[in-house]
């Protein structure tokens, strides 16, 4: 009933799509916070891949993919915290979160 010979392929496809969407958001949105969110989306897509590969991989009992996913979830939380902290700090200096306005790092 589905176009894919393998369920894994379907999940990978979805993940790729989600990743692309996230990337698009990260590359096009002005608001720094939204860029961060989009990056989170990309991470999640990666997690989906990990889980899918774990599920359909040859050795699910080794839990490798699962562990990767769990750790990346944990790391993502930290990443979000620090990222938002940075954004708030930046906002405090330049009263905006618009990335087109923020060019302080100009060489």
């Amino acid at each position, binding site marked *: 009933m589905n176009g894919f010979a393998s369920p894994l392929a379907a999940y990978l496809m979805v993940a790729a799509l989600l990743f692309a969407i996230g990337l698009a958001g990260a590359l096009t949105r002005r608001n720094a916070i939204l860029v961060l969110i989009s990056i989170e989306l990309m991470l999640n897509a990666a997690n989906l891949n990990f889980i899918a590969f774990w599920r359909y991989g040859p050795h699910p009992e080794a839990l490798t993919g699962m562990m990767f996913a769990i750790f990346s979830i944990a790391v993502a939380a930290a990443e979000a915290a620090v990222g938002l902290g940075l954004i*708030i700090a930046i*906002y*405090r200096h330049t*009263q905006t979160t618009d990335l087109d306005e923020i060019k302080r790092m100009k060489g």
Partner: protein
Amino acid sequence: MATTLDQIFILLRDWITGFLPQAWRPAAGIVLGAATIVCLFPALFALAVWMERKGLGRMQNRLGPNRVGPFGLLQPIADGIKSLTKEDIVPLNADAAVHLLAPVVLVVTVFMGFAVLPMGRNMVLVDMDAGLLFFFAMGASTEVAVFMAGWSSRNKYSLLGAMRAVAQMISYEVVLLLSGVSVVMISGSLSLVKIASAQNHYTGWLPNWYIFTPWGLAGFIMFAIAATAETNRSPFDLPEGESELVAGYHTEYSGFKFALFFLGEYLAMFSISGLGTTLFLGGWSAPLSILTWVPSWIWFFAKVMVSIFVFIWMRGTLPRLRQDQLMNFAWKFVLPFTLINLMVTALWRFMGEGWERWAVCSLILAAVFVLMGKVGMRREHLGPRSYRYAE
């Protein structure tokens, strides 16, 4: 006989699903159970509301509801009809969609929590391997609903209330989780069913509930505090502090949506009391070995109702905290103490049987409690508070 009474609901379900083809039975059973929960708890909710109003009335030297029906027993029903027939007002520049979604999301997520609570021997909707985690996940997602409500109704009281609620829920959720973890460490399972049955045996007459151990007691106290904060109950009811922000995040709600919020609050109380019962108070197990003939579900609901009454009692007794006090309490006292309780639990786990571990664990906990109370919770004199954005 006793077993029949005990298992009556199970038997009933099996009997009903017996009419269906084999393949559908599990699904049908779950649907049936869900339906039961969805019907049962609103009824309990009505009862609890009546209890609260009566009890508060007694505590404040009032009569409380006494017009509708005997002892005003029908009062909740009247309220329900009223709120259903009331006009549903949506503020002009509110974010209509989110405004509508918020209560729904709240109630749904709260209801989800019940799925993993064992309400009696074999009486659980789905016995998940990670039931506790599921419960907490659901509890976490209610915050989103609260925020939606507060933000969508474009009202600074609502927003403030919502932010307060979310902040305090996040802070205390950590504690809730950690105090649960200590139980998991001992029972060695995340499945609430296993946890409940792990406490269902007796030494002599007395039950081996986790609350009857040093770490269990400490954990339960912390859990109770955190639960009160999670459900925004007094003395932690700043989110809807009438005197400060009219009614918090559901200021702008009326009619049925408001009723949903109200329902949601009580359902949250039920589910969290159920969790506490399962984790520390031995779930559906009888308090004395000689009382095991009483059906297990009776015990469960009895315990839940008792803890609900305690909630009400606290509300009648304690004054409301201030926001900074709330946060200090969470991060400077409750959380560290819970962490230390974790260590103590580990100690308990590895010290093996014997009175020594009782002595050592209770000593450590008592010492830490006193110390932190003396050192951490010294009242600091704050200057005038200032609210600001991050400039």
